[in-house]
């Protein structure tokens, strides 16, 4: 197959590139990764007016060709033709915000000088007009020396003329790059002069955005609005997702049972039913929560509110050495640390980003909830400490708070030691507010969900299978009366582990449950259930619930220590694997695992001994 012509979309952040990409390619798009770097590659198919297909690639939004982040590096390397895994584009579509020519034309000029045949998409022209700007595209085209097409990507306006112009471009040959004129400041001034010449009429800017900002960024009202939004979001993530998650759970159980019934007893059945189906089921049961969370985050991002949230949170984050930008990834981590850590890519400062990655697992993810729920229900009495405030709910809140406080303290400590150094601070463009487009939201949701499923799914499926093997080998003779779990590699590891965790009040059953919980935290619950089910020889105890069974064999200090352990312990292989991918090596994930296990050990130990001391 001969290579399709490659056209690249390039421009400043907030120029509406992604919306234009969606308008040009529709659903014919693919999300991947550039080799060796953690930068996403968005590519799609486009049909040119003569019926030929072309490949369109959406390059990461950047401010210049002098890179300050991995995203910008990729954009520079693609344009100059040195990026691994990408050809040099045959044509460029430079996307500029019509309402922000002052700032976007400098980068446009730098791109044109690269010699690749180019056109300018003068995007969001409708908003610029509403903003009181009357522009002269012909004048702009004459000054820049390339065609200028006014577009409104979200309404698909200007898409056909843009495609016509692409066809012309593909007939042209690239010229050698021209050296850039003057320094950055000189080019910026030149761009402002071009912008001024292209603006025929200008009225005072941005009435709508300003009046929204006056409410949303109000020193008192702003944080209250943010808190209410977050409350609604968490409520939705936990309440709305439950019926769907229960449905998926029931479906997975049904498939599990069907496979169990259909296959002959033996090692293969155990592998398929308990290893493969249960393992993959453990991931997809989180999909409803993650989709709801992503939907909220996407709406907040595309409307422009997320940047305001970062603005409001910057002060708090700065007090522990981070910036407001860390707020968004940490927020995602309450559903699951995997997408949260992936979202740190938007943080430009490498040390800020690393610190955020290292503390993200301390945000109480949804996988911890089943563990907390079982233990709290069994050991914490359901009585009110104050009217309307139950003790059980208070303990749960305390566990969430413990994670947040732990994360802030950890950030403070990390910023003074391993990620020391002055950060770039916080400098961020606050774009205009926009109405989200439903179709683009669905497309974004689908892409994020797919990336999550692919990454977490493969990692969890593989680790569950490894754990299944550890629990099932070597095999015991069924007639010998020895428990398979005790005899397995995992059983032997648990015996060794029991010695280590005994000082913090854990028994051997807990240490056995900790091993499969590495695949996903909530597996600790089912592992405990399995262990007690296998160990119970006494028929009368068979009917007890797991909670009653735990209550009978654990002391309260042990239960509390177990809760404290789960606040901190890095009990999740997918998180560790994602950290390895995002930091390009084993150094940081190993460091993270070590410091979190140390924290968990100290926290559980302190809880156990304090509780014992107070005679609980």
């Amino acid at each position, binding site marked *: 197959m001969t290579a399709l012509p490659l056209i690249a979309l390039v421009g400043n952040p907030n120029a509406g590139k992604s919306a234009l990409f969606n308008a040009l390619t529709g659903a014919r798009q693919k999300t991947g990764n550039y080799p060796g770097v953690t930068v996403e590659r968005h590519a799609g198919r486009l049909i040119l007016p003569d019926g030929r297909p072309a490949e369109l690639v959406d390059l990461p939004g950047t401010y210049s060709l002098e890179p300050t982040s991995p995203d910008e590096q990729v954009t520079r390397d693609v344009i100059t033709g040195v990026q691994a895994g990408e050809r040099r584009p045959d044509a460029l579509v430079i996307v500029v915000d019509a309402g922000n020519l002052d700032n976007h034309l400098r980068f446009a000029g730098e791109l044109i000088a690269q010699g690749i045949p180019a056109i300018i998409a003068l995007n969001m022209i409708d908003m610029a007009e509403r903003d009181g700007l009357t522009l002269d595209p012909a004048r702009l085209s004459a000054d820049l020396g390339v065609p200028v097409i006014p577009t409104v990507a979200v309404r698909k306006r200007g898409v056909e003329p843009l495609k016509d112009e692409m066809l012309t471009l593909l007939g042209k040959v690239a010229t050698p790059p021209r050296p850039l004129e003057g320094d950055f400041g000189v080019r*910026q001034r030149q761009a402002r002069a071009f912008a001024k010449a292209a603006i025929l009429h200008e009225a005072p800017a941005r009435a709508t955005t300003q009046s929204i900002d006056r409410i949303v960024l109000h020193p008192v009202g702003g944080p209250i609005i943010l808190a209410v939004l977050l409350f609604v979001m968490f409520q939705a993530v936990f309440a709305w997702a439950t019926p769907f998650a229960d449905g998926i759970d029931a479906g997975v159980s049904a498939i599990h049972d069907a496979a169990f019934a259909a296959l002959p007893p033996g090692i293969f059945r155990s592998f398929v039913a308990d290893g493969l189906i249960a393992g993959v089921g453990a991931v997809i049961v989180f999909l409803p929560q993650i989709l709801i969370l992503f939907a909220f985050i996407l709406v907040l991002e595309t409307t422009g509110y997320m940047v305001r949230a970062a603005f409001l949170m910057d002060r708090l984050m700065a007090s522990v050495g981070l910036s407001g930008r860390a707020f968004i990834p940490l927020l995602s981590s309450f559903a699951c640390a995997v997408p949260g850590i992936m979202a740190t890519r938007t943080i430009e400062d490498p040390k800020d980003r690393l610190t955020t990655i290292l503390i993200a697992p301390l945000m109480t993810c949804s996988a911890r909830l089943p563990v907390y729920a079982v233990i709290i229900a069994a050991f914490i009495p359901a009585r009110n400490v104050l009217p309307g405030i139950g003790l059980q709910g208070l303990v749960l809140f305390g566990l969430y708070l413990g994670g947040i406080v732990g994360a802030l303290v950890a950030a403070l400590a990390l910023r003074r030691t391993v990620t020391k150094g002055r950060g770039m601070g916080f400098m961020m463009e606050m774009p205009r507010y926009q109405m989200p487009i439903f179709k683009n939201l669905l497309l974004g949701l689908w892409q994020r969900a797919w990336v999550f499923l692919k990454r977490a799914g493969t990692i969890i499926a593989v680790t569950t299978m490894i754990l299944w093997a550890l629990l099932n080998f070597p095999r015991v003779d069924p007639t010998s009366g020895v428990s398979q779990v005790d005899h397995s590699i995992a059983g032997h590891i648990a015996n060794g582990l029991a010695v280590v965790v005994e000082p913090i009040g854990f028994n051997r059953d807990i240490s056995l449950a900790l091993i499969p919980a590495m695949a996903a935290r909530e597996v600790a619950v089912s592992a405990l259930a399995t262990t007690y089910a296998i160990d119970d020889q006494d028929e009368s105890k068979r009917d007890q619930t797991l909670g009653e069974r735990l209550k009978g064999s654990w002391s309260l200090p042990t239960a509390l220590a177990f809760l404290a352990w789960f606040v901190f312990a890095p009990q999740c292989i997918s998180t560790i694997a994602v950290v390895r991918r995002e930091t390009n090596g084993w150094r940081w994930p190993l460091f993270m695992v070590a410091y979190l296990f140390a924290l968990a050990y100290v926290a559980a130990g302190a809880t156990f001994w304090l509780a014992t001391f107070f005679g609980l």
Partner: protein
Amino acid sequence: MRLDELPLNQPATIDRIGWERLDTVAARRLRALGFDEGLTVEALHHGGLVSHDPIACRIGRMTVAIRRNHAALIDVSLA
């Protein structure tokens, strides 16, 4: 007067930016976001109830958030 001392909603002209006191990346980002000598700037919002940090400023047709320590390097005079 410095930008961090500028009262809200009062347009001012940027007289000088202490480029030499910014590290290269921060200086380039500040320029890319549209800050330059001779332009009009206006502080629109303060973050933080007590600290009034960061500051959201209008520069050109854009709103940009910067922290106080960077704003303190920008000399302005009321327009």
